[in-house]
């Protein structure tokens, strides 16, 4: 009987510890609940072995640690890498010129399993791979193209080269974009490059000016030619029309029964027209033989 209260005390302690134990157990079991956000996937492991490669977005339950573990990766989050943006170190072009270049690259995870298990540090590998690809692209491109028209070609090649190597390394990464943010000649030779640009503009201007002059000259020549022809046509027209009129008049005179009278009148009119304007020298008939005659 004396032991009774003791034993009830013990009973109470063991009951409380039992409740705590059960509560702890429940909590531990509940840690198996996890959520996967939209755009993410989880990889589920059982003692390190993959049991589900792609757990979709939503709320899920797995056995608590250490039986099951999971790792979440985002398939939509884009990561941006900047190369050469903050250092002014030069890059070499295919024709052994030095330029300054900066490249922006974005990528995302494509294959969660590869991303997690193929490489130890995928982000670092991506950065170094893209840098190497930029180096390769630049060392095979002439400086003029790298600075002007060849930029998109370089971007395309960097993307291609990087993706090829990352796929080969099973990095589980997809390069989304490459953008050649800066490609300029170094300060020390910037003047030289500007001079070339000016010269190119000069060339274009000279050719354009010559073209304008040539055009003006030609159109002037065409106008002149047209005028010449028009004049000739007008003269010809007048000539024919006048001839027509005269021919008709002569014809009428010839065909008329009083033709002789017409000619006589014409003769007189002609004399009347021409004699008054001329100086006249009248010689005696004796001198007539000494004058040359024209017929």
């Amino acid at each position, binding site marked *: 009987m004396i032991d009774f209260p003791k034993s009830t005390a013990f009973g109470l302690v063991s009951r409380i510890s039992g409740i705590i134990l059960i509560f702890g157990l429940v909590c531990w079991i509940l840690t198996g609940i996890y959520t996967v956000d939209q755009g993410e996937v989880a990889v589920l492991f059982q003692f390190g072995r993959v049991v589900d490669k792609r757990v979709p977005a939503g709320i899920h339950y797995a056995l608590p640690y250490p039986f099951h573990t999971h790792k979440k990766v985002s398939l939509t989050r884009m990561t941006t890498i900047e190369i050469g943006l903050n250092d002014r170190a030069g*890059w070499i072009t295919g024709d052994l010129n030095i330029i300054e270049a900066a490249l922006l690259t974005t990528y995302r995870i494509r294959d969660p399993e590869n991303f997690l298990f193929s490489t130890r540090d995928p982000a670092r590998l991506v950065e170094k791979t893209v*840098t190497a690809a930029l*180096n390769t692209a630049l060392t095979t491109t002439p400086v003029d193209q790298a600075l002007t028209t060849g930029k998109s070609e370089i971007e395309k090649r960097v993307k291609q080269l990087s993706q090829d190597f990352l796929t080969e390394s099973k990095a589980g990464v997809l390069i989304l974009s490459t953008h050649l943010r800066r490609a300029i000649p170094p300060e020390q030779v910037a003047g030289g490059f500007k001079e*070339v640009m000016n010269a190119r503009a000069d060339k274009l201007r*000279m050719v354009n000016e010559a073209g304008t002059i040539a055009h003006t*000259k030609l159109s002037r020549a065409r106008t002149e030619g047209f005028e010449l022809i028009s004049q000739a046509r007008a003269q010809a027209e007048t000539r024919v029309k006048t001839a027509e009129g005269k021919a008709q008049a002569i014809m009428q005179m010839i065909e008329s029964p009083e033709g002789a009278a017409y*000619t006589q009148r014409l003769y007189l009119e002609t004399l009347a027209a021409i004699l008054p304007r001329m100086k*006249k020298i009248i010689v005696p008939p004796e001198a007539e033989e000494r004058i*040359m005659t024209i017929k």
Partner: protein
Amino acid sequence: MKTLRLALILVLFLGIYVLATAAVPVEENQSALIFQFGRVIRIVDQPGLHWKLPDPIQTRFLISRKIKVYDPEAREYLTEDKKNIVIDYFFTYQIADPLQFHRVLKDDRIADVTLDDLVNSALGSSLGRYELTSLINTRPEMTRMTGLLDEVVIKTAAMVSETGVKVNSIKIKRLTFPRENEQAIYARMFSERQKIATQYRSEGMEQARKIKAEADLEMEKVLARAKKEAACLRGEADAEALNLFAGAWRKNPEMYAYIRKLEIYREVITDKDVLVMSNNLVGGELDMPDVIGKPYRSVRE
């Protein structure tokens, strides 16, 4: 009662210890070496839960087989044509034989440095057999850079075959000239630019001249064509005019000639001409048409 409870707790802790050290969870792309008193007795390559005897009887050592990147500092090299270049490369490798790796290299950091020494010397000796222009060239098909790097990979791989490591690839992050050569290169670049500028200007001049000369030629052609056409038109008109008089002439040639002559006198004779005539004309009793046959003389002063 108290000792019993103590024993129970002891057994519980011992059990946890045994479970914890006997279980070997292995991740994907990972290997576990199982040692028994310091000697490897088993290698586990498969991921998942594996068992061994608890520590300290058997111990484990985990080795990752994931690809690793090593990126040393840039170094200077010499090409076959004695050009100094600075190369900043990185290489990737992975552990292919965990047991061999553990025997020879043991540690990642030792692996990095050892491999880098080999890659460096292989790259140095390979570069010595290539000219700079065969590494850097504007025509991608002319560059033998890929071949050179493959060569270095093969050479290094042969040298590290004993270490259980597989060198995957070597990539050049950046290829530059040594700083002390830069000024000379800038000077060369500048003179090249000037040459190109001069070339553009002379090309412009040449093309402009050509365009002008061609325009002049074309202009001459256009004018010549126009003149020819004008002459043709006039000639045609003359012919047509003559043709028109032909009818009248055919009908009465003498009378036609007479009328035309009168016309010609009217056109030809001006106030500067002098008429010399015999005084029997003045009388006015002449038969007029005969006068045409009479002596006339027109003299230009």
